[in-house]
Structures are given as structure tokens and as C-alpha cells.
């Protein structure tokens, strides 16, 4: 277990492996997006209540799920990084932050675009929308911290603590629709019992959710590779790669 973790955690090994896997991931998310969009926009029927406006769900819900998922992943990296000091955790968390912030922004923006025709407003300060906005600030706060502190080690440690503190926001976002009266609807899929969405709409939604997840994984690996090269630019293995023309 430990030898495995150290081998995988070594920057050189990770760089090579990520480089090999990434073209496949790219092809996979393009295929998933194409299928999901076709099923969601063309094949899926109109909703009985919301007409065609409900189709925003196929980008809104995956973005919102990813906004929380990426944050939890970063918090796990933070915990591992603080306890075991694996170098790679800082790289992966730092590479995740702009991606998570993008998903959070998309969840808020597409929700707003959906809210205008259905609810009658772009924005309300209910518990769900407010806690999701706080999530965006957590991402931006982490990124600002990494950019502002001159020492990389101190910046990462401070950022990791911020990530761990902010993790309490995640259950608040998820359960806000049950704990308080909100304008936002309660959960359709992640609730006890069967999802209250017709299979013809559920399938494209799940495909889009997987597409978003693979997209995140692919971009995480790509950003992490760039960050590793930058950090290890003077090491022997990186220079070796450059000299042999494999970069």
C-alpha cells in the first residue's frame, strides 16, 4: 500500500501516466457530451409543467453536482496533504480549484437563466442559492490564497485549512431544501425512494453527469501535468525528458 502510494505520488510517474490516459478521457467525454446532448435536447420529451425550459436541467444539475463533488475531492486532498505531506495533493487541489469554481459559476448562472421564466426572478436569497454562492466564494478564496502568499508551502497549508473548514457548507447546500422553506425545489434524484423523473429524462441527465465528471478528470490531469512541469522544471527527470525530445 505504501510503496504503491509513493510510486503513484511521485511526480514523474504521475506525469507519464496522466499523459497516457488523457487522450482516452478526452475522446470519452466528447462522446458522452454528444450522446447526452442529443438525448436531452432532441429525444427527451417536453415536461408536463415546465415545457421545454426544463431542458436546462441537463447542464444545471450536473454543474451543481460537480461544484460539490470537486470541493469534497479538494478537501480530501487537503486532509491527506496535511497529515502525510504527499507532494501531489497540493498540485491536484490547486489544479481542481478553477474547475470547481467554473462548475459552481455554471450552476448559479444556468439556475438563474432557468429561474427567470419559471419562478419569475433571476435570483432570490433562499438557503439553497445563498449556500451555493458561498461555495463560489470558498473556491475563489482558496485560489486567491494560493496566488497571494509568496511561500508555496505556507500557502498550501493555509489553503488546506480553509478547504477543511469550508467542507461544512457541502451538507448545508445539499440539505438546505429540506431544512428550510426555499424557493428552490427539493431533490429529484438524490432522495430516499425512486427518483421522481421520467426515465426518458433521467437517462440523458445521468449521461451528462458522467460527461461532466470525465471532463473534470481530464482537465484535472492536464492542469496537474502543467503544474508538475513548472514545479519540477529544474529536476533531473524533467530535464531528461526535455533533452530526449519527449516533452
Amino acid at each position, binding site marked *: 500500500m505504501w510503496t504503491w502510494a509513493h510510486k503513484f505520488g511521485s511526480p514523474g510517474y504521475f506525469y507519464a501516466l496522466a499523459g497516457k490516459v488523457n487522450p482516452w478521457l478526452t475522446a470519452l467525454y466528447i462522446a458522452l457530451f454528444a450522446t447526452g446532448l442529443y438525448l436531452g*435536447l*432532441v429525444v427527451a420529451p*417536453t415536461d408536463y409543467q415546465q*415545457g*421545454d*425550459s426544463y*431542458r*436546462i436541467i441537463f*447542464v*444545471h444539475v450536473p*454543474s451543481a453536482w460537480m461544484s460539490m463533488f470537486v470541493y469534497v475531492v479538494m478537501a480530501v486532498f487537503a486532509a491527506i496533504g496535511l497529515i502525510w505531506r504527499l507532494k501531489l495533493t497540493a498540485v491536484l487541489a490547486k489544479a481542481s480549484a*478553477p*474547475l470547481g469554481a*467554473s462548475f459552481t*459559476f*455554471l450552476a448559479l*448562472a*444556468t439556475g438563474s*437563466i*432557468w429561474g*427567470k*421564466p419559471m419562478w419569475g426572478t433571476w435570483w432570490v436569497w433562499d438557503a439553497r442559492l445563498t449556500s451555493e454562492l458561498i461555495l463560489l466564494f470558498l473556491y475563489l478564496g482558496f485560489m486567491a490564497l494560493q496566488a497571494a502568499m509568496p511561500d508555496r508551502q505556507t500557502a498550501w497549508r493555509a489553503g488546506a485549512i480553509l478547504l477543511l473548514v469550508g467542507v461544512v457548507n457541502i451538507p448545508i447546500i445539499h440539505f438546505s431544501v429540506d431544512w428550510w422553506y426555499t424557493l428552490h425545489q427539493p431533490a429529484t434524484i438524490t432522495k430516499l425512494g425512486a427518483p421522481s423523473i421520467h426515465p426518458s429524462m433521467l437517462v440523458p441527465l445521468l449521461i451528462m453527469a458522467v460527461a461532466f465528471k470525465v*471532463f473534470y478528470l481530464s*482537465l484535472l490531469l*492536464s*492542469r496537474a*501535468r*502543467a*503544474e508538475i*512541469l*513548472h514545479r519540477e*522544471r*529544474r529536476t533531473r527527470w*524533467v*530535464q531528461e*525528458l*526535455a*533533452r530526449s525530445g519527449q*516533452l
Partner: protein
Amino acid sequence: MTEFLYMGGYGGYVWSAYGLCLLVLLANVIAARLRNHNARREVKKYTGREQ
């Protein structure tokens, strides 16, 4: 086709939501490529110096 774009009257909302997603995801792809490109250039600067 026009009916598809019309989206039962919600075309403006639906397409702007999807357009925004495309824009943001594409920007992320381009940013990641750019970072890799710059990192490689940076590495090669050191390679030249050592030789």
C-alpha cells in the same frame, strides 16, 4: 429545425444556458493547453542553459 430552436418559446433561455456552458468549458480546455505549452517552454529554457 425552427421549432427545435424555438424550444416552445423558451429558446432564448435554453440556448443561452447551453451557450454559456460551452463557453466556460471551452475556456477551461484552452487555459489548460496554454498552461502546458508555457510550462514546456519554461522547462526548455533551463535545458538550454545547462548545455
